[in-house]
């Protein structure tokens, strides 16, 4: 198990570098897919099957398709060549600093023993609130019931109301998106046509006019 984590972790780190350094936007996007996939493997090894599936479906599936689609749609001609200058140095220093700080901060949270990685209660040394602790042993509640069952159970008890509110939130967002982007064909509310045409040169009528001329 530990070997898999090392391999997948290394792959994730390498492909993350590929996202930043590759000259072609499409390669960057594909590196991101690889990085996400490698992270998903780590989730699976850590017994978080639900996160594994969600990671693959939502990020590697839906979000990445959008990325690639938009890249293909905009078809950028060329990426600006990569240059090592002061801004680059500042960026690298900042990124390395944040990474090191995260590792130091997480040393309480994640332990590594001979058998594998274990997440433990964060900040256990200084934390006065011992009201909760995840039972993370292989026989613990989460792992015996299965991740998906646990998430489902929580979703339909403790988080039932938030779950329902989310549906309303999506409905409102959808209505708003339709309202803001729809073209008006409403006799009662005249959109000033001249202005609308001047502002949107891609309109059908415009194009025809240009071709006729």
């Amino acid at each position, binding site marked *: 198990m530990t070997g898999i984590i090392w391999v997948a972790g290394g792959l994730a780190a390498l492909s993350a570098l590929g996202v930043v350094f590759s000259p072609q936007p499409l390669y960057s996007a594909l590196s991101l897919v690889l990085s996400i996939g490698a992270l998903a493997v780590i989730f699976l090894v850590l017994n978080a099957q639900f996160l594994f599936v969600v990671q693959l479906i939502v990020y590697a599936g839906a979000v990445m398709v959008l990325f690639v689609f938009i890249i293909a749609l905009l078809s950028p001609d060329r990426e600006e060549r990569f240059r090592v200058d002061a801004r680059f140095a500042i960026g690298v220093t900042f990124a390395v600093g944040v990474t090191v700080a995260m590792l130091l901060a997480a040393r309480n949270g994640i332990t590594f023993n001979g058998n594998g990685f274990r997440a433990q209660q964060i900040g256990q040394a200084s934390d006065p*609130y011992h*009201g*909760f602790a995840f039972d993370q042993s292989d026989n613990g509640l989460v792992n015996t019931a299965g991740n998906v069952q646990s998430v489902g159970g929580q979703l339909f008890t403790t988080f039932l109301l938030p779950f329902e509110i989310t549906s309303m939130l999506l409905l409102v967002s959808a*209505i708003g998106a339709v309202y803001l982007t729809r073209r008006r064909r409403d006799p*009662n509310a005249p959109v000033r046509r001249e202005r609308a045409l001047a502002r949107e040169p891609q309109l059908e009528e415009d194009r025809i006019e240009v071709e006729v001329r």
Partner: protein
Amino acid sequence: MTVLGVLPVLAPPPGIDILGLLPEVILAGGFIVLMMLDLVTAPAQRGWLAVVSVVAVAGAFGATVWCWFDAATPRTVYFGAFAYDRFGLFINAIILVSTALVLMITPQYLNRRGLHYGEYYALILGAATGMMLLAGAGSLMVIFLAIELLSIALYILSGFNRTEPRSQEAAMKYLLLGGFASGFLLFGMALIYGETGHTQLTLIAAAITNGGGTVDPLLMAGIALLFVGLAFKISAAPFHTWTPDVYQGAPTSVTTFMSVTTKVAAFAALIRVFSYTFGEPLIYDRWKIIVYFVAIASMVVGNVAALRQTSLKRVLGYSGIAQGGYILIGVVVLTPAATWGSLYYLASYAVANIGAFAVITVMANRGEDLDSYASLRGLAFRRPYVAAAMGLFLLSLGGFPPTAGFFAKFFVFAAAIGAHELPLALWGIGTSAVSVFYYLRVGLLMYTRPQPDEPSYNWSRTSLSGGGVLALTAAGTLVMGIFVTLVLNIAVSAQNGIVLHG
């Protein structure tokens, strides 16, 4: 599977209690019905959609009143996610009355702007549902989702006038800054969850009490970030920069709605989370410092900046920031008197502010809003009743007796003095004195006779519904200022009824 095995599915499992959400469910139902009615309503008949939405709001208000008597013993429903108590219901009532008043002045204004679409009413009801959920939110998740629900509806409503660059600018600004604020809010919630292991407020309070003795820096960081997120919604001072621009750019009927209801709902969440969940003395001593300075900053920035404005909407925007500062005094001070003082303040602010913005909305003509100082000049000679009502609202916002605003300020400042926070009360009284300048300037302009050759603004005629809204808000301002105990008793009982444990 036997029949008996299926039966338990039919009975609702414990913890699911639709009764506790009755007003919200009615309003959400109205939202969906309106979307369907919009499909079959002819464009010229869209005024009926306003009628339907007012009926939905009235239904929710009736349910709220019924629940008020039912919720004599408060409880949480949906596994601690929602508080069914008189505190939330009091806020619900303010939100619903404000929504109904806004809906009454809406159709006429939208027609003048050529914006009369059915989505408007649905979005208003959606936003109001989010606000009511926020008022009763008993868990961090519900707080976040309710804030998103109301915010997204308001982003769209701010940009409702799609051909007007100012409206677009308002929507964009509100969306971007609101997104940042949501980030702060969510990060704060994550830290609080990480420290206490719960999302339900009652369980968080219990975890903090059990863990007493030490203060974890991560918990304090979470509380501070949560405050930033909520302070953005009440437009308190360092987080207020969006307010004047959005108030000015959004359609005025939307400004009327959001300037009042958002603030009322966010304050309800703020009081519930900070005064009643993080009230543990050790924690309180630390967050008090932040809220203390934000309150003073809001009072100073709001009042001083309002002095230099030349647009009526911006003046009212900055005045709203200052009013938020006064209400924050009621959050800083932990005594029950401070809480019911804030509740009374919220009610009085809602009535006066809706009235003041309703004057702008009702008087707006086809060209531009009644926004500049020049357009106010001489209003009293052409529309004497409207000008008198506007004067009354300004007096109430400035805190003069015998209006609602005087007693609201009095209760909050008295609570601060009673809790030995004299400096806060002095800052409040001092900045209120400053505010008199700009409120009176607007008032005096209305009563200044214009020069004979000066072109005057072409004020609209007050319609039945517009005049009705002005009459109702004026009456409310006076009633709350004269028969004080009428609303005060309800506010006190709302404070008493707040749910504290499970």
